[in-house]
């Protein structure tokens, strides 16, 4: 796999900085150079949002995915850390093609956190779990001293059931495939941004946070040859596509004009000098499907209430450099690179 960063991590004197959690190349490097080699096993090496493992019994396989949620602020337009922590993990199970079954939740509470806020968060979590039909079956709670946490962190883990025959993975994209997104990008990231103390702006933007397993099930049921599914969270569409391009060893070409972006998100990006391609979604799906099936895939997505804004945004081709490129709305061409550093505050 081609490395997109050159200087190795300084494991002697280096320190964690904010960029290591940004979803960009610095984070990928931390995983590739520290976590993966040490914990190394075939499941982790799949490099997907969820891992697929066999069970002692039967042909069905287990999918397992985990996410730590450290979003700030805890409550944001369209959601809060509670429902987000349910959606974020269900989606990582769902994009493997699995049916999400069960969730676990571990809470790290900061001393002094208001119980009323905790209650709102757990209520939201419960409602999200109920709506998704995926119960939180086990949990844990720890309390840390004030100044050693930030209100509440929630780590959720999801397990799902993957029937025989479904094989999705970030390394299955191939030349000729089409790239789709299920709706406008960047809403979640911008909903969070609008609440940042130092940036605060008023906008109609609400987070797109949602559980996607229903949409995924419909897409899979449509008979389309699906190669890769992924939710463009931290790092946004741009970084997520770069991850897939690297995993699959391919290049991609996007059409900027076809990428759906809500006007308010585009406007907020202009204000802040940001690029919607790197703004997180928490309820959007990237689907890479066989080129011949792209219209069928689009129709399947658009038929679902969560996919009405779906679009075909690009295609996959051969490229030894694994570049994700884009024809700009202006008519030129450019690279869509990995996110550098920290474009966004903590959003998931």
């Amino acid at each position, binding site marked *: 796999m081609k490395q997109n960063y050159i200087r190795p991590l300084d494991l002697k004197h280096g320190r964690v900085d904010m960029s290591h959690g940004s979803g960009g190349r610095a984070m990928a490097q931390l995983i590739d150079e520290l976590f993966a080699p040490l914990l190394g096993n075939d499941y982790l090496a799949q490099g997907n949002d969820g891992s697929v493992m066999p069970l002692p019994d039967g042909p069905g396989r287990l999918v397992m995915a985990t996410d730590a949620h450290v979003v700030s602020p805890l409550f944001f337009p369209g959601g809060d850390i509670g429902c987000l922590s349910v959606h974020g993990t269900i989606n990582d199970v769902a994009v493997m093609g699995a049916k999400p079954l069960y969730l676990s939740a571990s809470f790290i509470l900061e001393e002094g956190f208001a119980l009323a806020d905790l209650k709102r968060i757990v209520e939201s979590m419960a409602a999200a779990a109920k709506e998704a039909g995926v119960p939180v079956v086990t949990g844990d709670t720890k309390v840390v001293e004030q100044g050693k946490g930030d209100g509440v962190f929630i780590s959720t883990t999801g397990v799902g059931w993957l029937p025989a025959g479904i094989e999705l993975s970030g390394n299955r994209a191939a030349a000729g495939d089409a790239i789709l997104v299920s709706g406008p990008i960047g809403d979640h990231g911008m909903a969070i941004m609008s609440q940042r103390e130092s940036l605060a702006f008023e906008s109609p933007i609400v987070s797109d946070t949602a559980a996607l397993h229903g949409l995924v099930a419909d897409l899979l049921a449509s008979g389309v040859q699906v190669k890769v599914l992924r939710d463009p969270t931290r790092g946004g569409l741009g970084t997520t596509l770069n991850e897939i391009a690297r995993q699959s060893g391919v290049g991609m070409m996007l059409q900027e004009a076809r990428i759906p972006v809500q006007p308010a998100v585009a406007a907020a990006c202009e204000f802040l000098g940001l690029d919607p391609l790197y703004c997180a979604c928490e309820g959007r799906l990237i689907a890479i499907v066989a080129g011949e099936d792209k219209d069928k895939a689009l129709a399947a997505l658009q038929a679902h209430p969560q996919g009405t804004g779906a679009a075909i945004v690009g295609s996959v081709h051969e490229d030894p450099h694994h570049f994700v490129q884009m024809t700009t*709305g202006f*008519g030129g061409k450019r690279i869509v690179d990995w996110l550098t550093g920290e474009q966004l505050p903590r959003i998931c």
Partner: protein
Amino acid sequence: MKYVDEYRDGELAQGLAAAIAKEARPERRYHFMEFCGGHTHAISRYGVTDLLPANVRMIHGPGCPVCVLPIGRVDQAIRLALKHNVILCTYGDCLRVPASDGLSLLKAKARGGDIRMVYSSADALKLAQENPEKQVVFFAIGFETTTPPTAVAIKQAKAMGLKNFSVLCCHVLTPSAISNILESPEVRKLGTVPLDGFIGPAHVSTIIGSRPYEFFAEEYRKPVVIAGFEPLDVMQAIRMLVRQVNEGRAEVENEFSRAVSREGNLKAQNLVAEVFELRRAFEWRGLHTVPYSALRIRGGFAEFDAEQRFGEDYVSVPDHKACECGAILRGVKRPQDCKLFGTVCTPENPVGSCMVSSEGACAAHYTYGRFRELPA
């Protein structure tokens, strides 16, 4: 977005591209420097290069405030944060600029420095009001666009009688940088940097007006077209420059007339004059020490001058030996001419400042354009 989307129209771009292609004489080459990082960014972000004929080449200038910031200035800010324990506020792009000892403001933050990104000088002021027990320093960088907001903040701090707010003033002046390039041996004597004209700053010019460029047009016989930062603005400016060259003219023209006048913003100019005065000399990255090229805080506002308050003097620090930022900022080299480009030096691990801001020539080329050099 009114006044934005119209200036990014792809169809108009095709028409302008055709016009440029037609007007540019095939027998000659055109070399134009876009002074501003804003233009550099627009060119890369929208792929403008793909719409220009091969004989029109854009040279990136030194108009990126992050890129021209010398290491020693970032060191100064880091010392304020780590040694004097101030809350150091700065615009986002400064955070990743490499400083001495492998540090940057971001890494200094990870070492315990209280370093905050702000959107506005007003936010820094607010932080000072909210943290009366702490000293708050605003690390102020930028050209004439960004200077007036700093002046306003300092005047407000004085009006409020704030005792814990000060500014590490690194504001620099556009005309000095342009002079410096035009006076450089490569341009003036050696001619190794062919320079047929300038795209003049957009937002800097809203403040200083178009008049300051008249001197360059006359004295150095270089055409200047002031242009907005949208891609159609840039293309139209290129077209206007091609015409001036073809017609042997060297004038100041204003493509960005919707926002720039000849006089500029007098209110802002007065505010700046009230709060700041010329520095005798200031070190720029790439351009070395440039006389009268930057501002410092006037005596009447001395208490808001972080350099005076904390006695942290500027110490010049040489750039990384192999880094070509200096030559790139003077238009002498291109990013891909640097040995470190894309290997040792990447946006994640920038060696020079040009690899930091997306307005920096190296970062823009790496992030948006490096596919052009590679075999497919």
